[in-house]
């Protein structure tokens, strides 16, 4: 019954989305607007119905109702409860339902709370939102019904891909989806503002929290995914330039650019067309990301989510939305008036530099990701990997950091570099000293890691400068948010540069009792024994890691899951303040001499990468909180704050 009720709720919600679209459109076409009073209630109903459908599915997973196909094929009676619940969205149908539910609830929230933009623009936005939702309802109901029954019901269920049985990963896809949904709302606002010719500061202020929220979720999602790949896949890397990783990075790049340009629009009423363009691109990129993951069109480590037919459906939706949006863009953007002018050396100029560099990185990643497909169309088979992406993106990232050193210190409209010359000289001194010290400590280091370390040191100081001369207690929270996020970038880049420049690795075969050395650590394999878990068995190595008289136990595992059959490696990580010792145990050595293949890494400051990512997201969250708090206290005033 629950499953049928959930399905019925989805159909009703689709009808509400249609009503929202038609009601908004008739008003927009200059109609009498008899349907207009129904638009907001339709949005509320749609949100409530979708939330109900999602919780219905969660209930089915909670009780492990194996007569539902989705539950039977993704859950198992023996699975721990947290993974049973995570199973609700740990699969294609469930994750699409989550997407639709979050989107509908957000639409209801806009209808309820948004008071800053004109009613007509709000209705247009809700109409676009209904239009997008309709496509996803069609996708859910026709191509991926989460409530389909299975007759006869099996006795125990098939299980979940063991790589995905991980608390961190249970929350990785939904986090990214929240980000994608937030960008879909930014998209709706942008198209709504284009249609009603209301591209201005009020629109920017209405759209900004959604962009900010989406960006926070994307940041967390990417950082969590990167950490998961780092410790679960046992390759010791944290970014592989895999097509699916790129698919999540591209919306983030677009969202980061959008976040900055929307602040300019909200404060200075400049960059109007560009902000609209970025909002469209950001949503197009998140659709493209979903498409790349689901279609399996590019070979990827994420191949567990592949289904070409559904890929075709998402592709059709993506092409429809983005084409229509860009047609509207081309037809209507001429009516958007030129924004306020500004000079090159100014806060606006800094943000334009930020936008240009981010767009260039986005283009590089997009070209690199799609190039294998283009090459295949030409009859050539290639894959594009880290050599291209690193060489092409890192210089632009370093330029971006350079702009970040200066930009936040500049004034709006016009400024002179002479005004901040002491800060510039100080920054250059830190840059030079940092680079020299790193180079002295490790002479053989590549240029990029050196520059990365020098720039991150300079930024770690420069990030705090916007607070100088302010009364801290009276400084708006968004300023703190910006400062913390920029500091987080310094921390993260420092980790990346240190890890890629100074990591040590050794691959060896050890019998119990033997030792290996790496970066001053002496690692002794003391024992190898079998262990069992809920739905796996493993070989576990017990290692004693020694440095400076301190000794620590590490227990890497090579796990064998049996529902479904799969081999995974659980790396053992020993975290110190200045880095991580990373140990992996693999197969017994081939010679049959009782040795085990052991791989050890010393990764200096590697944890800074995710710690910095967390700071970036925290900065965003503080900013969002401050903005909501301020809004509750008094109406928005026309004074600049960063996103």
């Amino acid at each position, binding site marked *: 019954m629950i499953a049928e009720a959930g399905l019925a709720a989805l159909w009703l919600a689709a009808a509400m989305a249609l009503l929202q679209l038609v009601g908004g459109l008739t008003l927009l076409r200059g109609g009498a607007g008899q349907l207009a009073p129904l638009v907001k209630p339709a949005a509320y109903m749609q949100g409530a119905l979708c939330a109900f459908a999602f919780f219905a599915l969660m209930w089915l997973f909670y009780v492990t109702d194996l007569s539902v196909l989705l539950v039977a094929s993704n859950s198992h009676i023996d699975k721990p409860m947290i993974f049973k619940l995570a199973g609700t969205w740990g699969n294609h149908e469930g994750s699409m339902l989550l997407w639709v539910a979050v989107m509908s609830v957000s639409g209801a929230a806009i209808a309820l709370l948004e008071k800053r933009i004109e009613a007509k623009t709000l209705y247009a936005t809700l109409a676009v939102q209904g239009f997008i939702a309709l496509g996803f309802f069609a996708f859910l109901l026709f191509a991926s019904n989460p409530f389909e029954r299975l007759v006869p019901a099996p006795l125990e269920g098939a299980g979940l891909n063991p790589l995905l049985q991980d608390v961190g990963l249970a929350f990785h896809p939904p986090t990214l989806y929240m980000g994608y949904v937030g960008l879909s709302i930014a998209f709706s606002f942008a198209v709504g503002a284009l249609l009603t010719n209301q591209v201005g500061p009020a629109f920017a202020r209405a759209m900004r929290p959604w962009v900010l929220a989406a960006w926070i979720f994307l940041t967390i999602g990417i950082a969590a995914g990167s950490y998961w790949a780092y410790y679960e896949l046992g390759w010791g890397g944290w970014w592989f330039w895999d097509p699916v990783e790129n698919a999540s990075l591209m919306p983030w790049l677009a969202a980061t650019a959008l976040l900055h340009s929307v602040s300019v629009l909200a404060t200075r009423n400049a960059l109007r067309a560009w902000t609209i363009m970025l909002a*469209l691109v950001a949503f197009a990129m998140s659709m*493209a990301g979903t498409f790349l993951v689901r279609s*399996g069109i590019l070979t990827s480590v994420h191949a567990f989510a592949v289904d070409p037919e559904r890929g*075709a459906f998402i592709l059709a939706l993506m092409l429809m939305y*983005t*084409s229509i949006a860009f*047609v509207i*863009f*081309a037809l209507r*953007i001429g009516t958007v008036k030129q924004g306020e002018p500004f000079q090159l050396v100014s806060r606006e100029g800094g943000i334009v530099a930020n936008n240009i560099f981010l767009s260039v990185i986005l283009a590089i990643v997009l070209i690199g990701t799609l190039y294998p497909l283009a090459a295949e169309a030409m009859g050539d088979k290639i894959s594009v990997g880290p050599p291209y992406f690193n060489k092409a993106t890192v210089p632009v990232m370093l330029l971006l950091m350079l702009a970040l050193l200066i930009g936040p210190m500049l004034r709006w409209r016009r400024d002179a570099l002479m005004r901040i010359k002491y800060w510039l000289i100080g920054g250059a001194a830190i840059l030079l000293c940092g680079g020299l010290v790193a180079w002295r400590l490790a002479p053989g280091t590549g240029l990029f890691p050196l520059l990365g370390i020098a720039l991150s040191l300079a930024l770690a100081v420069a990030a705090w400068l916007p607070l100088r001369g302010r009364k801290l207690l009276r400084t708006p929270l968004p300023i703190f948010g910006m400062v913390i996020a920029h500091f987080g970038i310094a921390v993260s880049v420092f980790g990346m540069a240190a890890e890629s420049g100074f990591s040590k690795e050794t691959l060896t075969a050890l019998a119990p009792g033997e030792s290996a050395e790496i970066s001053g650590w002496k690692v002794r394999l003391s024992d190898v024994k079998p262990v069992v878990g809920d739905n796996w068995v493993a070989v576990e190595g017990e290692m004693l890691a020694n440095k400076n008289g301190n000794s620590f136990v590490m227990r890497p595992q090579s796990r064998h899951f049996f529902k479904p059959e799969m081999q995974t490696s659980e790396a053992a990580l020993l975290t110190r303040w200045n880095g991580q010792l990373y140990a992996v145990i693999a197969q017994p050595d081939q010679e049959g001499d009782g040795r085990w293949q052991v791989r050890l890494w010393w990764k200096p400051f590697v944890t800074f990468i995710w710690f910095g990512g967390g700071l970036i997201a925290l900065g965003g969250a503080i900013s969002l909180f401050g903005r909501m708090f301020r809004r509750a206290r008094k109406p928005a005033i026309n004074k600049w704050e960063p996103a």
Partner: protein
Amino acid sequence: MNKPWFLWIPLAVVAFIGGLAIYGLAVPKDDQVHSAMIGKKLPAFSLPAATAGVPALSSADMADGKPRLLNIFASWCLPCKAEAPHLETLKAAGVEIDAIAVRDKPEDVAAFLAEFGNPFRRIGSDTEMAVQLKLGSSGVPETYVIGGDGTILFQHIGDIRAEHVPMLIEKVNAAK
């Protein structure tokens, strides 16, 4: 109103990427990496016999004017066992087959032949995978069609199934 043409660039980019994606979905995916050696002469090699009673194999042995198949197998490889009956069918149809046993031991090869039959004229033993790599083969089993002059004409990746037998016979006959 006169609208600048460049406003349509985003739409054109979407159309281009969409076209690529549609192409990618429409064309069946082929993840196999084919040998770069197809169309070239066999690399020179001379392998010892893989087991007693079956002659050894060298590249010179295969350039005797007669087209034939070169099967790369191993006694430890399960698909090789599955394709053994089809190799027998090929032999019965008059196709000559030479073989290379990869990373194998003489007694294991002998046991394999005893259990699944011996359709091979000659078997060379490639314990280091050196010749396999020179041929551009990345796994077992693989089967090559070798022309009478020792040219590599065709590569079949994976086990031979019943439906592949007529195709292979035709390829060998076409090379005569």
